[in-house]
């Protein structure tokens, strides 16, 4: 996790809020550093994490996780992390007929129906274990990323239904958190993606939007992060708060600074 981002979001692994849906969005840049942040954040907070990784392989997250101080292999072994690797499963599903239903079995079907098997998988993974004392603080669902589901044939409404079911289970029933990543296609006129993005923006409590700079590529400033709290916790503040910072990604951390205040410029 990135300490500076924790400071900006005003959270620590011990004092994170529960029952929240966080939306990560990236436009014209790669927002995957936010996924790595939240993955390591929740693993350090001793939560039970279900990670639906559709776009990259396990070893990719594991190697980056090591840089950030968590070991995904160990977390998986002791049961803290349930990892669904989309790329590997896709090969198995398409080439071999599966006996039992697989969470991603919509890949085999000609007409994509719904994501019910995937939801069952998530619910099964995150349901509280009855034996003994509670090991993990609260469950967390991480999805990277939802736009891939649209590319694989699901409709935007089906994906929104899935998120709705997950939210009802994970956020409300189990008092856990959800973090999902959606790409913003910008001017590519991807209607399905826009429907998905708008629908999720409406439901989420915190939106982190990583954008590329409007002026193009810069070596010292990799992009701009917009933080939008949808429902701030203090009752006195009625308006949604929004902050914008620029960032530069380094090998093991990300440094944030106010707009125009990059250390390279000052």
């Amino acid at each position, binding site marked *: 996790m990135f300490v500076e981002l924790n400071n900006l979001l005003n959270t620590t692994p011990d004092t994170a809020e529960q029952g929240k849906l966080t939306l990560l969005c990236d436009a*014209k840049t*790669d927002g*995957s550093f936010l996924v*790595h942040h939240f993955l390591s954040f929740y693993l350090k907070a001793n939560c039970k994490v279900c990670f639906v990784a559709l*776009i*990259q*392989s*396990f*070893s*990719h997250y594991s*190697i*980056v996780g090591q*840089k950030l101080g968590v070991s995904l*292999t160990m977390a998986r072994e002791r049961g803290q992390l349930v990892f669904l690797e*989309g*790329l*590997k*499963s*896709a*090969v198995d599903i*398409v*080439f071999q*007929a599966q006996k039992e239903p697989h969470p991603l079995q919509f*890949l*085999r*079907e*000609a*007409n*994509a129906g719904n994501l019910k098997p995937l939801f069952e998988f998530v619910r099964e993974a995150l349901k509280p274990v009855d034996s003994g004392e509670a090991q993990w603080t609260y469950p967390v669902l991480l999805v990277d990323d939802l*736009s*891939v589901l*649209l*590319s*694989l*044939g699901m409709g935007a409404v089906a994906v929104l239904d899935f998120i709705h079911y997950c939210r009802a289970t994970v956020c409300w029933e189990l008092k856990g958190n959800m973090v999902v990543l959606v*790409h913003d*296609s910008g*001017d*590519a*006129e*991807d*209607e*399905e*993606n826009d429907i998905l993005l708008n629908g999720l923006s409406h439901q989420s409590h915190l939106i982190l939007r990583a954008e590329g*700079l*409007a*002026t*193009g*590529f*810069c*070596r*010292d400033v990799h992009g701009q992060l917009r933080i939008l709290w949808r429902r701030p916790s203090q009752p006195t503040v009625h308006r949604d708060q929004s902050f914008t910072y620029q960032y530069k*990604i*380094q*090998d*093991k951390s*990300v440094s944030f600074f106010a707009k*125009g205040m990059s250390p*390279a*410029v000052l």
Partner: protein
Amino acid sequence: MAAVATCGSVAASTGSAVATASKSNVTSFQRRGPRASGTNDSGPRLVSIAGTRPSVRNGQLLVSTGLPALDQLLGGGLAVGTVLLIEEDKYNIYSPLLFKYFLAEGTVSGHTLLVASAKEDPANILQELPAPLLDDKCKKEFDEDVYDHKTPESNIKMRIAWRYQLLPKMEIGPVSSSRFGHYYDASKRMPQELIEASNWHGFFLPEKISSTVKVEPCSLTPGYTKLLQFIQNIIYEEGFDGSNPQKKQRNILRIGIQNLGSPLWGDDICCAENGGNSHSLTKFLYVLRGLLRTSLSACIITMPTHLIQNKAIIARVTTLSDIVVGLESFIGSERETNPLYKDYHGLIHIRQIPRLNNLICDESDVKDLAFKLKRKLFTIEAGVQWHDLGSRQPRLLGSSNSPASASLVAGITGAHHHTQLIFVFLVETGFHHVGQAGLELLTSGDSSASASQSAEITGMSFRARPRALYFKENKSKVGARQLLETREEHLSSRLLILTQAERLCMGRRFFTAFHIFNELPCKGDCICLQTCQTQ
């Protein structure tokens, strides 16, 4: 190894102005680093495979794309387990070249090839591979005798550093080389012995589609399904994914798929906006990437994205590929007659570079790259007419005062108040005021007039202020070069044309901005104007 070091230094000295960032040359020390992304960490550590090298940044295993200049731009090479997507140029003239370079590199390095095409028989494609250029430092690695000694031709256009011109000339012969990255002679064919010695598999769609093997419907077009099965078969049978207990493979599989997405594959995304199979291509790419991630293979795909009707699909395809390189040739466009581009055949755009096992990627600083196909070589050069200047503290000018319709913003880094800036904006029709707004942010310098241009320029010019010249693209027959020539007659002025920022966007007009500096008496000042794209 001496051969490897030579390769590195030759790569650095031939032609590419790109070699500013010093990608470290390959040393003989082979890191036994982690395997390609996706493969099991607990698997056996890889000993070095011919034609590969570990990445400097994260130990990722890399293969060469066949063009050492492109390797440098991609951060060292193509990572094993990833997909390189080439967006074809309009008339599909240069993208087959890149495709063939990739396959030729595989032949020379001894990798296994898998060539898939719906248009040409793979055997014919392999016959047309370019011949490798090898110096005789690699001679010891050859088994066969050398073919013919090439007499040194004085008009070989390959630019070699002067100290290498005295070395014995190139020889071509059947070879198995363990170097990384070779040069190819586009005017000659690869020797037959090399092709026959290589292990290759071909997938020609018209042959395969006729066989009536029952295929389960899974919403991929039949062509894609067959191709996926074929690839998966080869990977399993030859042991590239390590799952076959009988076969222990320590080689790379190079997959080349030509014209994916074209109607010849049975896909209609190039014909209809919302066809029935709109998810077929993206699903195919997803499953292909899954196959690649778990095996020792690398894939090149050429795709006619300029034909795809639904722009959302292009965005999705880009997300699902790892490296995306776009080619834009000048044939038939207005740029063919533009004097600025007369030495080049087209532009190369590196649209996406993956971040594998890492938070950051090796993105090249140089964004405008042009390629040219000389008689023998395909070279990539950076910064058309870019006079490289020393840089001051970069400071980006915000685009805050440009209305929404502006498609370009030029950022100034480090303007010095003694110089007179001449901005040349090419703007969209109906938008004339960006120059004025932008100019107010500049400090206006001494306004000694000079600037006696004979060039025909449309637009306004401000006398006592930095000048703004508006060029409309289709009127700029004169272009900047003539302006440069008239300027150079002036002794005290030094005109520097910095390169254009181009915005390539579908459906909009393309405009270029030239920034012309006219430096006045105070010499020794370096201005670095960095133009930025808004895309």
